[in-house]
């Protein structure tokens, strides 16, 4: 509604004010909203939005800008596909891909009931109940629909391109949300920002088939619908919001952010005396329907009514009910009666709270205590993940560039002209900044709000400096609460934003801004935006577009070498080992082994069982014969390790080794001590000065087996490790229980075969006579039982 500065020019000649223009524009703008309600309520007024009318141009322009934003977002995410190929990236996406593949081949119910016996040997994993299925279902559904139309796309390509496609949807929902918060031009700017901002691209490049890719869309869309329902107080929008929330719950664990932010919004509105019936309708519907829907996801189950992170929502719900009830009573009772009742109610509430606290002390808090103990054990495993590190200032700028500087300005604009939904965006911004500061990976939730607020800031500045200042309008500063008293309709909102210009106002000079200052400021802003676009492309191209499954190195002449060692080794496992072979490796590679090699793994990236991981860590950090005992007990056939010493790859297992030791020490403090792996000076070294425990542990032996003979360079001695720049300390490595089964071309992946025992140990006592049980004859039955017991 604020865009008339763009639209007035055709009527410029008739220097009179033109409120009809504003009217036209407002109505047709609503017409072009992508929702059925607005279109329906406005039809029949005979205003057609053809190109002869400015409103037609405007909607065409918005459509084109959104379409181009989608296109730009999609294509800037394709660096990896163009440089390498259409391939699934990294670690978690391989699991998601594998599950999606399972879903698309076996159907939805089979997927929900899927017991994956190839993971966490011998425990297995109930996949259907331990994943957020939204991603797989989305990809599977798209694949199914395409195949129904005989578009024979491979499921892999669907998975690879899902995140870029959804980035376009994110751009559109960001546009919608920003339009609700501010105006259409800010919305378009926000859509362009979110399309290319690196903070979001980092999680949604083609091939990065991960929950975040679709969850940000769900997040933004839920917020849009929430703002819409708070504005209108209509159950229709609230139900839409619940459905979107349900999708979010099914897609990502980050839904907790929504279920805390929305109650916070409601709570703050209550504190600000901004309670209205619209708010009551919106939140009550949202909480109840959203709760029921979220509990439909098997992985979430009863968490929304049990765990502490959902309690805020429940508390605010109760508070809102009480508040509404009191409001109701206030109209009907005298002041005296009301006071009595109020005290009665308060004391009753206090009693309920007290009882709840007592109850919780026995149940919930007990759990909390247990959890903190559990987390303490978990600490090494959580801390060992690089994306759980706190965010540095550099990465804020790296991921958001100029937006990180401008978004406080947008926030200020919002707070200055505050209304219900701007309270929401302010809370969103503040909480997201906090979370992003805590953990690198939560940068992702900060990115959309930063885009929106920066867009508001830029848009306001442009309105001041770019537009014809006589046509400038004040930002829509309607107060929704008094609006509510009149009528409950969505249409009203747009109307209220309309501010007529007066003939008399035209004579007043706005601010003493000369055209020079205007053009300088505009140029400066445009330069900033240009630099932002350049930075985004550069970051995307250089930092976020590596599949990490395939490595590339560049020669001096610019030609490229592809190091495909990971896939070489995984494919060897897939082709040339027994179908049921069990592969032991550090958990980082679990998903990849399952996805690419299709073999059973002991531990994987779903680090739910710490003691199992610790056992693998123990095997890796013990000496060979002790490790052999562990491996025997775990039925290990092959051991896979990553070794970067030949090509200087720094992410290899020796560099991760201390984490294995720490995690193993957490569970087996008697057998493994971290200090044993350091030199007396407290250094971690692999050369001759290294600690003897390290030089004889299994990981060291497997990494450097026969490496001592290898001379990489004439300037360096044989056995020179390029990653750690040291000549290895133990060159004469002999393996007794293991043998080298495969080593990839650049030695990046080494696979060892665990030898079978030569002869059986003679039995020391008589065979136990076992009664023949005819219980589980068929294999199927046995499986079933297995499933239940886990």
């Amino acid at each position, binding site marked *: 509604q604020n865009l008339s500065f763009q639209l007035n020019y055709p009527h410029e000649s*008739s220097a*009179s*004010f033109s*409120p*009809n223009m504003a*009217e036209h524009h407002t*109505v047709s703008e609503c*017409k072009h909203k992508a929702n*059925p*309600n607005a*279109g*329906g*309520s*406005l*039809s*029949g*007024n*005979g205003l057609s939005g053809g190109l002869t009318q400015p409103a037609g141009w405007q909607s065409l322009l918005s459509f084109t800008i959104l379409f181009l934003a989608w296109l730009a977002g999609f294509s800037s995410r394709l660096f990896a596909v163009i440089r*390498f*190929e*259409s*391939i699934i990236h990294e670690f978690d996406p391989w699991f998601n891909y594998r599950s999606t593949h399972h879903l698309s081949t076996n159907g939805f119910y089979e997927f929900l009931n899927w017991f994956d016996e190839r993971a966490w040997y011998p425990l297995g994993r109930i996949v259907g109940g331990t994943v957020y299925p939204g991603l797989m279902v989305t990809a599977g559904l798209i694949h199914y629909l395409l195949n129904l139309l*005989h*578009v*024979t796309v491979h499921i892999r390509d669907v998975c690879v391109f899902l995140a870029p496609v959804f980035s376009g949807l994110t751009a559109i929902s960001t546009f919608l949300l920003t339009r609700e918060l501010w105006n259409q031009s800010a919305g378009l700017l926000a859509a362009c920002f979110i399309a290319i901002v690196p903070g979001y691209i980092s999680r949604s490049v083609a091939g990065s088939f991960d929950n975040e890719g679709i969850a940000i869309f769900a997040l933004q869309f839920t917020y849009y619908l929430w703002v819409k329902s708070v504005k209108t107080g209509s159950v229709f929008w609230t139900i839409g919001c619940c459905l979107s929330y349900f999708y979010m719950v099914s897609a990502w664990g980050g839904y907790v952010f929504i279920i805390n932010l929305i109650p916070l919004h409601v709570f703050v509105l209550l504190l600000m005396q901004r309670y209205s019936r619209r708010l009551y309708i919106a939140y009550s519907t949202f909480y109840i329907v959203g709760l029921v829907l979220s509990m439909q996801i098997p992985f979430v189950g009863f968490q929304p009514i049990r765990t502490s992170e959902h309690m805020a929502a429940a508390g605010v719900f109760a508070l809102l009910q009480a508040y509404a009830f009191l409001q109701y009573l206030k109209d009907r009772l005298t002041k005296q009666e009301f006071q009595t009742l109020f005290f009665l109610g308060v004391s009753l509430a206090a009693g309920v709270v007290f009882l709840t606290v007592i109850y919780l002390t026995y149940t919930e808090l007990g759990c909390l205590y247990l959890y903190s103990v559990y987390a303490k054990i978990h600490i090494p495993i959580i801390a060992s993940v690089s994306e759980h590190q706190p965010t540095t200032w550099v990465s804020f700028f790296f991921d958001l560039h100029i937006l990180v500087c401008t978004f406080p300005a947008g926030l200020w604009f919002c707070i200055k002209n505050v209304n219900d939904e701007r309270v929401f965006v302010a809370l969103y911004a503040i909480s997201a900044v906090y979370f992003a500061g805590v953990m690198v990976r939560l940068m992702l939730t900060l990115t959309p709000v930063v885009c929106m607020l920066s867009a508001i800031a830029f848009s306001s500045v442009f309105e001041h400096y770019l537009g014809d200042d006589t046509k400038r309008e004040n930002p829509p500063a309607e107060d929704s609460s008094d609006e509510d008293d009149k*009528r409950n*309709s969505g*249409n009203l909102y747009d*109307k209220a934003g309309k501010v*007529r210009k*007066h*003939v*008399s106002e035209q004579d007043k000079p706005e601010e003493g801004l000369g055209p020079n200052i205007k053009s300088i400021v505009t140029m400066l802003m445009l330069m900033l935006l240009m630099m932002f676009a350049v930075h985004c492309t550069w970051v995307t191209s250089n930092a976020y577009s590596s599949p990490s499954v*395939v490595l590339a190195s560049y020669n001096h002449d610019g030609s490229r070498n*592809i190091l*495909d060692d990971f*896939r*070489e*080794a*995984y*494919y*060897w496992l*897939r*082709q*040339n080992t027994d179908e049921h072979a069990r592969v032991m490796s550090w958990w980082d590679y679990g998903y990849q082994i399952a*996805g*690419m090699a299709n073999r059973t793994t002991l531990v994987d990236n779903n680090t739910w069982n710490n003691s199992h991981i610790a056992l693998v860590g123990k095997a890796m950090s013990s000496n060979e014969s002790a490790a052999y005992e562990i491996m025997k007990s775990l039925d290990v056939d092959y051991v896979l390790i990553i070794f970067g010493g030949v090509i200087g790859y720094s992410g290899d297992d020796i560099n991760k080794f201390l984490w294995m030791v720490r995690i193993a020490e957490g569970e087996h403090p008697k057998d493994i001590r971290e200090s044993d792996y350091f030199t007396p000076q407290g250094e971690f070294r692999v050369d001759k000065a290294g600690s003897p425990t390290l030089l004889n542990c299994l990981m060291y032996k497997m990494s450097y087996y*026969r*490496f001592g*003979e*290898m001379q990489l360079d004439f300037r360096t001695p044989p056995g020179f490790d390029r990653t750690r720049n040291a000549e290895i300390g133990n060159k004469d490595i002999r393996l007794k229980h293991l*043998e*080298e*089964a*495969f*080593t*990839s*071309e650049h*030695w990046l992946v080494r696979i060892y*075969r665990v030898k079978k025992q030569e002869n059986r140990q003679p039995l020391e006592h008589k065979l136990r006579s076992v009664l023949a049980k005819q219980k589980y004859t068929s294999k199927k039955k046995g499986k079933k039982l297995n499933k239940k017991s886990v």
Partner: protein
Amino acid sequence: MNRGTGFRLPSCLLRLAWLLCAVRADGLVNEEVRRTLDLSTHLAKVSAEVLVANHGASAVQSFTLALESDLAPHLAYIGASVKGDEEEDNSLALKETSIQGRSGTFFQVQLPSALAVGEKLRVKVETVFTHVLHPFPSHITQAEKQLVVFQGNHYLYSPYPTRSQTTRVRLASKTVESYTKLGNPSKNDEVIEYGPFKDVPAFSQDAMKIHYENNSPFLTISSITRTIEVSHWGNIAVEETIDLRHTGAVLKGPFSRYDYQRQADSGISSVKSFKTILPASAQDVYYRDEIGNISTSHLQVLEDSVEVEVRPRFPLFGGWKTHYIIGYNLPSYEYLYTLGDQYALKMRLVDHVYDDQVIDQLTVKLILPEGARNVHLETPYPIVRGPDQLHYTYLDTFGRPVLVATKKNLVEHHIQDMVVHYTFNKILMMQEPLLVVGAFYILFFTVIVYVRLDFSITKDPAAEVRMKVASITEQVLTLVNKRLGLYRHMDDAVNRYKQSRDSGTLNSARKTLEAEHRALTNDITALQARLKAEGSDLAEKVGEVQKLDGQVKDLVCQSCQESERLVAGKVKKETYITSEKTLAGKRQELIARIDGLLDAL
């Protein structure tokens, strides 16, 4: 054309009796036999040049070839040709048959012309056997060399007696562990020569056994699926899914990358890479497997072919296998022939994968365009046709017919052309573009319908009234604006009049003002009535505006009169200016009030 082995018995059994007589009666004799056993690769290529003489009583039309019973199951290819005086060979037709009381497999060769009594004919027989070289020892370490054993026959297995015979065996290397020494053979580097053996009776066998080093790649394609998809839009897509296995001696113990990289003879029998020759016009070649591109390959475009250096992800040692997909596009004008609605596709049934290839199981899938009918497949050798299938891909509605054919045990000699005839109505070419056009049409039409029609579930009368009121208000605003514009015009006219003192123009301007003003006021009154009819309280405001406007108009008229009086000299200039000022002030005030009211609308 030669006949392969795929041909099986039933019809031959019927002729059994006749054949028995024929063999016995025809009195043929192998005058001179020169056999060559090429064992230098993983195949056993046995070729024999036989000088057949007719010593019988009558001319013969055919003669019989025989294969030993232990070699026959491994036969991949057999072909016979007449060695003429010229260079060109005339290949002969073969038919499988059998001879009672004798083991082995027999082929009846049809001669181009009857062999008269006493005449001689030089015939060249070529056979290729697969999987007859057995690695011994069957398991070797990485450092060891691969040794294989071949077991065969010293003599030519033939239903006819042989006068004179030599056997020449070509091996892969000089290193020979052992070989049978019938007739004191001579060994020279890689060649062992047996014979000559004189007067060998019919069906004679003598076990030959050669144990030698053979490090040539023992690659076997355990299965290959070749999919050919024909599009009438100018493209033929070929895709081969290949399961490859190293069938030599199985690797025992560890595989050491260090040794493999540093020592030249380490893993000598392993396969690092091989060359696949694709047709010269092949484009968009891809080489991949389940987990993506195999980045270790190279492509070389030569003048008459495209060479792909296929390098599996890992070197193939004995017993190791791999699986990959290779595919490319061909322009259809080189392979697709058409006459009216008749089409013929001439393509290789199986193509080159690597030199001396062995294919255990071949499946060919031919996907013809949607709507192809009367499909007829001509193959150079018998092949087993499976039931036809349907294939759906982009923009298909009722599916493309798929021909499925399978064959076992193929070698390089089977790289031959097949021809598929079918009819296809050219009108069907329009089907796919029309589908796309239709889909877009429906899309746009839906959008148009959606935008134009009201799909709201509930009718909101209040909203509708509001909308109506809004539109009326809008019109009112326009009209009021226009009216205000009129006053400005009037002012201009008055100013002009003050300079020109032409009362005619002023009067005419006044008249037009009056007329237009009346019209506008009437319009606004009409709208006001409509507003009232809608029950909107805005009508009162409009009424107020009207009232104010009347005052403004009066003021305008007043100022007009004042100016007239000024011009006529009835008032002094100063008085006029002061009165004009007060009038202007009043007007400004009134207009501000109107604005205020309009804002409230």
